[in-house]
């Protein structure tokens, strides 16, 4: 949109990846004179806001400087040799697929830092908290920006340790086991993924994603591709998470602090689906074709399973936890993303990428809201909240209630909001899958997934009824709750605005992803 010279763009991208890391180190050092603030804790939390804010600004400038006429071209690329022995290169770049994810990550992390500045989760010192959040940000941003398989793996792994500590140190009840489950599941998957990445790298002679996507190396025979897709797919599917590998997610979300949940749902899960699109689709199309029907089948099972689990949790008397419910709804939403990818059509993959972003915005918002409800009422248990007749959030805290209702209807995919387009495009893709995939099978999947949207609507509306509605504040002596604070407004408004914007003007996002997806699916030829 605005002309920025290539070298500045390169610098911006490098800054986005390296900035949080430097910030993390700086957070551990004592504050320099003049920046000491009111107390060391306040100073370090402010440091977190400043660093994530700077990264966000850099990401926005990068997005403005991005050549929107050629979103399929890798831009702001840096390519430096790092470990010649393994042929690992520091190869960075953004295209239409990774740019929205980069901006989303920078935005969500900034909002989380801002939110923590005013409402630090209970636990040990904020110094380590800020450093960990920044390392987490560096890892996720690097995952979306690197174009080398081994570097991708490195970035993929980098988020584990910080997320583990965020859950284990600042989490709620049963945080220890939940954090363990999170890290063990993900590690198990990623070790298998490493084997798959090595197989690709050794058979084709390069770890460079761009070269691999364009060359169709003869070393990658169909059998190699099938093995590689299986190995890499398992690692990515754990992260996504795909049913039946999802069981770490509800525990992790329930135990994590609000900020951890937001980042986990909003950003970390996207790393899995991004890997499918960036690595598996272009590099191993034959292997992907073999597994696409299975992937789609697991995806639709996940959609229905997630919705049914949510329905069960939303039932009165089920002692359902709201955070747990949203976590299960994530399983369903990510099912749509996987279904879109499994169709291997531009429509489906675009839908998947759109749903990715939408899920990040909406679920991030929902976790913020539930966190706020939990802070005010001391519980996120639906039965305790609603008791006999409903929590009556509309009466006790009208703005908070309205926002929660907004998040819920956005999540169920109301047309006009962000959740709608991605799921619809994924279903469209399943209606007419790529050549070579069985159309009847995908039509069945589409029908089941469409049924899943109904279930989603059902449980979301039940939640709204039980949490937001209820006897009016005047009829009982129910105390009014604090309504939305200023800093909460600041943290949530961008998410609400972007949800509406993406719902009303989907072309803004699809215009970016579509050319890049077309090129990826065509084997690098645009």
């Amino acid at each position, binding site marked *: 949109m605005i002309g920025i010279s290539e070298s500045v763009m390169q610098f911006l991208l490098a800054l986005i990846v390296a900035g949080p890391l430097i910030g993390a180190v700086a957070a551990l050092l004592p504050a320099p004179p003049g920046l000491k603030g009111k107390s060391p804790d306040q100073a370090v939390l402010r440091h977190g806001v400043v660093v994530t804010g700077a990264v966000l600004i850099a990401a926005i400038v990068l997005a403005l400087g991005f050549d929107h006429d050629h979103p399929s071209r890798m831009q702001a690329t840096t390519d430096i040799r790092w470990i010649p022995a393994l042929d690992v290169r520091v190869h960075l770049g953004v295209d239409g697929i990774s740019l929205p994810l980069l901006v989303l990550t920078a935005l969500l992390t900034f909002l989380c830092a801002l939110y923590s500045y005013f409402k630090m989760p209970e636990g040990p010192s904020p110094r380590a908290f800020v450093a960990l959040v920044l390392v987490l940000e560096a890892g996720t941003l690097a995952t979306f920006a690197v174009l080398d398989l081994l570097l991708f793996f490195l970035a993929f792994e980098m988020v584990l340790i910080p997320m583990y500590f965020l859950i284990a140190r600042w989490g709620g009840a049963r945080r220890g086991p939940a954090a363990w489950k999170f890290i063990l599941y993900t590690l198990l998957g990623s070790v298998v993924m490493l084997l798959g990445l090595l*197989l690709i790298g050794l058979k084709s002679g390069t770890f460079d994603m761009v070269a691999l996507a364009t060359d169709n190396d003869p070393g990658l025979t169909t059998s190699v591709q099938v093995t590689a897709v299986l190995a890499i797919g398992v690692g990515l599917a754990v992260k996504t998470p795909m049913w039946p590998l999802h069981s770490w997610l509800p525990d992790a979300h329930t135990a994590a602090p609000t900020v951890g949940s937001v980042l986990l749902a909003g950003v970390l899960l996207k790393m899995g689906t991004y890997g499918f699109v960036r690595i598996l689709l272009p590099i191993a199309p034959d292997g992907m074709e073999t597994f696409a029907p299975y992937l789609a089948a697991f995806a639709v099972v996940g959609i229905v399973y997630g919705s049914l689990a949510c329905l069960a949790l939303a039932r009165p008397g089920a002692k359902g936890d709201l955070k747990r419910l949203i976590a299960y709804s994530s399983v369903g939403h990510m099912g749509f993303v996987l279904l879109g990818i499994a169709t291997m059509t531009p429509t489906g993959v675009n839908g998947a990428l759109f749903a990715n972003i939408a899920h990040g915005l909406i679920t991030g918002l929902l976790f913020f809201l539930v966190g706020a409800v939990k802070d005010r009422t001391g519980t996120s248990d639906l039965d305790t909240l609603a008791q006999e007749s409903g929590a009556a959030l509309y009466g006790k805290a009208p703005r908070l209630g309205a926002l929660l209702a907004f998040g819920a209807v956005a999540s169920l995919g109301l047309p006009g909001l962000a959740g709608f387009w991605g799921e619809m495009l994924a279903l469209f893709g399943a209606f007419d899958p790529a050549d070579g995939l069985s159309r009847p099978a995908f039509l069945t999947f589409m029908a089941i997934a469409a049924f899943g949207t109904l279930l989603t609507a059902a449980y979301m509306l039940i939640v709204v009824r039980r949490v937001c509605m209820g006897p009016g504040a005047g009829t009982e002596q129910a105390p009014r709750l604090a309504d939305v604070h200023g800093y909460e407004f600041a943290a949530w408004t961008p998410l609400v605005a972007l949800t509406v914007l993406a719902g009303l003007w989907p072309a803004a996002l699809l215009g970016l992803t579509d050319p890049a997806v077309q090129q990826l699916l065509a084997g690098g030829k645009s």
Partner: protein
Amino acid sequence: MTVAPTDSGFVAGAANVVQSVDWLAIAPPTIAAVVGLAVLVTDLFVPERRKELLGWISVAGLAAAGLSLLPILDDERSTFCVVGRGDTLCSYTADEFTLVIQLLVLGGALLTALLSLSTLKDARAAGKEIPEGEFWFLLLSSAAGAALLPAARDLATLVVALEVASLPAFALVGLKRGDRRSSEGALKFFLSSVTATAVTLLGASFVYAATGTLHLAEIGAELGEVDGDLRTLARAGVVLTLVGFAFKVAAVPFHFWVPDTYVGAPLPVAAYLSVVGKAVGFTGLILVLVVAFQEYHDVWGPALAVLAALTMTAGNVAALRQRPTRAYSAVRLLAWSSVGQAGYLLVPIAAAGYADRPSQADSAVGSTVAYALMYAAVNLGAFAVAALVGRTHARNRVSDYRGLYARSPLSALTLAFFLLCLAGLPPGIIGLFAKVTVFSAAVDAGLGWLAVVMAANVVIALYYYLQWTALLFRAPEGEPERYRVPAPLTVAVALAAVLGVALSGAPQLVLRFTTSGLF
């Protein structure tokens, strides 16, 4: 160092009876040995309260031995040569492989010496004195043997070097006077090691009988032309020779001595055994297998692959079963994890047995060397922090590390870094990439199953390394006490940490051995 005269040496004629020795090439092991002797003699003249001097002499000696590698960096030197059948055969070769391993061994010994300085001082203060002159002499002699081993190019020198490296180690383990556990560990170590070495000698004699030569290069050529009747003998010889080295690496089934010996030994000696002892083992394996027994790679390749799989599984499963509250569980955990790591070290050597081309075998060997360098730095670092914690918690249980971050943030952070390097998880980048090279050596050689076994093991290992790491940052029980850390210990931890961080930033420093041939 003397070299056993070989038969061809006698044939070579009078001109070769008096050899010109390349002193520069043999400087590293020689300096270590000479300083060791000097320390033993000096011990007689140093008054009781000045014994610390001996330690500093030894540290200086090891540093000098390490520095003596510098002048011979560029070219390949050989000495103790004879004219064999056809071309010149040398018993001592200082090529790149030798130099890298010597650097590892001497560096490892240097870090051990730094650790020992404060351990000996603490023992003196506690009245449980360890005889210092003997300690330093034994440590330096063992280091000299270990530094000689990678340069050895005939079976006799190899066995002599193996013995020189091992015999002082037994004594080092048993040096804690009046400690029952120490004597028990030493005895276990001694008995099993002597058996293993004897079997190696038997194997070497079989090979000699079958081929008529002791020089590795010549054995490599001769093994292919062994008569039909002698082939069985040669095969048996190949397998038996491996035993002694497999023992040093602590490969299954020669690993039972490890935990008891490590617990019984003074902690720095345990660190020494886990790094330098293993280096001796796998160097011997590489020399014997890849240089001499390449002809029989179809015998030892699969055998070693199975051995590697068993070793890593046994080590990691046993480490997983350690209860954190048991006495000395931290040392036991490190001991078992070092068995597991030995399994990873064996993987590329096994892959070399499957190589189609010599260059492929070379790069596989390079993976082992690269992994060993990473392992040496971070494992010694972990032991150094363990020694530090052991000063206040004599029973050194894993549960004693709870809340270490609150007591001493830097040592907790460095230990976490070392453990994550061993586990292969960022920020321990070098650990990750070292594992990647090992994986790729296995996948490259078509050993897919071994790669999968190793992947499973990596996950098991991650479990206990992470558990320990997480413990460091838990809230401490009771008020954290502060204490002074002795300077040599700090230097040792800092050196290991700097090495680890530098390698994580520039993994190419060690990983280059996987592309450039070492021989």
